[in-house]
């Protein structure tokens, strides 16, 4: 329960908003019985500049663009991508994984075992 006197306010736990420009990257979201999979366009981001934050069913991912070209640094310097999604309950936070490949971030959110469909074997009586 959250009250005004709560020492740990929600706002303080949220990832800080980048001071520089931030854009919302386009995202694909897929789901099957076992997991939710997200893809986000992160062009120009290297794996060590990606942040994932999962709290109270809220997933935030962000990435900071690394620009090498001097002439393009005014354009891309300090540019970051950031997006937040509210996920349905039942995601196993321990098993969330992410990989970045060719400027695309892939996030896998496995569901908790109790939510997975179960096959009930039928035996002859």
């Amino acid at each position, binding site marked *: 329960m*959250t009250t005004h006197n709560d020492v740990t306010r929600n706002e303080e736990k949220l990832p800080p908003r980048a001071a520089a420009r931030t854009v919302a990257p386009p995202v*694909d979201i897929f789901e099957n019985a076992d997991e939710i999979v997200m*893809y986000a366009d992160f062009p120009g981001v290297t794996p060590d500049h990606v942040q994932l934050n999962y709290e109270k069913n809220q997933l935030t991912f962000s990435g900071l663009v690394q620009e090498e*070209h001097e002439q393009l640094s005014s*354009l891309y310097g300090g540019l970051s991508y950031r*997006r937040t999604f509210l996920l349905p309950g039942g995601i196993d936070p321990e098993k969330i994984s992410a990989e970045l490949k060719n400027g695309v971030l892939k996030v896998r959110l496995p569901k908790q075992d109790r939510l997975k469909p179960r096959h009930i074997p039928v035996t002859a009586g």
Partner: protein
Amino acid sequence: MMTRWGDFQGTLAVMDEFRRRMDRVFEDWETGRQDGYSMTDGWAHAWPRTYLADAGASVVVRAEVPGLTEKDVNVTINQDVLTISGARKPEELRGYSVHRQERPATNFVRSFSLPCKVDAERTAAVVKNGMLTVTLPKAPESQPRQITVKAH
């Protein structure tokens, strides 16, 4: 009937959630509005996003091609026109239902008139981390020249 404490707590949690959502309603929209991204138009109207910069001795063209490798992109120069073409394949996930699809598969061709004559032989194109960078050295006659100012 008396309200059980659990229900009350549940209601508070919902209100808390609601407040949190309201705090963030305009966030994506605001950030999305910058830089030509538009949440309502989608991203497909000019893909890939491309920039052109003059680096003095060369012209640099930058295109955002997330998910593409060097095999997926073609770069050609025909006289003063640079053409970038290629295809982005869809994510191959079988047996998944789709909740949101903002990055569709697409075939693209974009052509740019270059601002000056370039040396096509020495032009280099690199794809790295989903960014295509084409560096086009200017032809000798297009190189910037420093004019010495003399006292009269």
